[in-house]
């Protein structure tokens, strides 16, 4: 597994089953997916490998609406993803097709969610792979992502 960006969180007083439900049901996803200033309406959710996840992100905050308009982006954006792995309540993977940014060619991002229960806590490991094609992600990003910011600062400071 190629690891690019990894984010970990521990949620208290919950179970992997409960967190799984928030990731894999329309109602669950709509309750938190966001981003901030957006609400999400799930239109299609086929929870199986190869199954579609279709949702609409709608800007609701006035400043987000203004931003989207000024950036030439529609106020509501349909987003397409498909599941690649569904192993309840432990492991979920899906791939997004990013095709809605003006001037940007379509590309895919893969997201892997792993849930581990420890007593009354649930530990979540989120792995993001941002890819134009698999090869450059594997060869170029891995090992660099944590250093890029520092490197840019170090160069700029010279």
């Amino acid at each position, binding site marked *: 597994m190629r690891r690019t960006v990894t984010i970990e969180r521990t949620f208290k007083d919950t179970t992997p089953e409960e967190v799984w439900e928030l990731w894999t049901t329309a109602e*669950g996803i709509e309750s938190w997916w966001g981003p901030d200033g957006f609400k999400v309406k799930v239109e299609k959710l086929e929870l199986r490998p190869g199954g579609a996840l279709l949702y609409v992100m709608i800007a609701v905050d006035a400043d987000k609406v203004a931003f989207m308009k000024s950036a030439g982006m529609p106020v509501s954006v349909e987003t397409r993803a498909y599941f690649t792995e569904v192993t309840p309540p432990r492991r979920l993977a899906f791939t997004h097709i990013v095709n809605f*940014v003006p001037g940007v060619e379509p590309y895919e991002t893969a997201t892997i969610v792993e849930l581990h229960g420890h007593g009354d806590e649930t530990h979540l490991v989120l792995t993001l792979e941002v890819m134009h094609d698999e090869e450059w992600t594997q060869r170029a990003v891995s090992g660099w992502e944590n250093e890029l910011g520092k490197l840019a600062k170090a160069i700029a400071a010279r």
Partner: protein
Amino acid sequence: MHSTAHADLFDALADPMRRRIVDLLRAGEQPVNDIVAELDIHQSGVSRHLRILNDAGFVRVRADGPRRLYQLRAEPFRELDDWISGYRRLWEGRLDRLAEELERRKKARANRREKT
């Protein structure tokens, strides 16, 4: 920000020899001859890699008499960092809201228990 531009940046860094050149230049400006000596490959190969890095904006070159000196530019690294950070921020924000939603559900469960 254009993803095609990012693809070019990543392509430029995808080659292990070019990453070695970038690593060498992190120590500061270097003449081509020093880079050739360090890498132990033919000068024409080094020149080709430097040209690709230059085209992608990773290095700038200046002449000092007969010598050509290369140094790194910050901009492409910052651009790549911003781009990757954007994904991280998006998901950090989402996970904050996921935690809030779990909290709301817990409170709702507690309220139901109190009522019964």
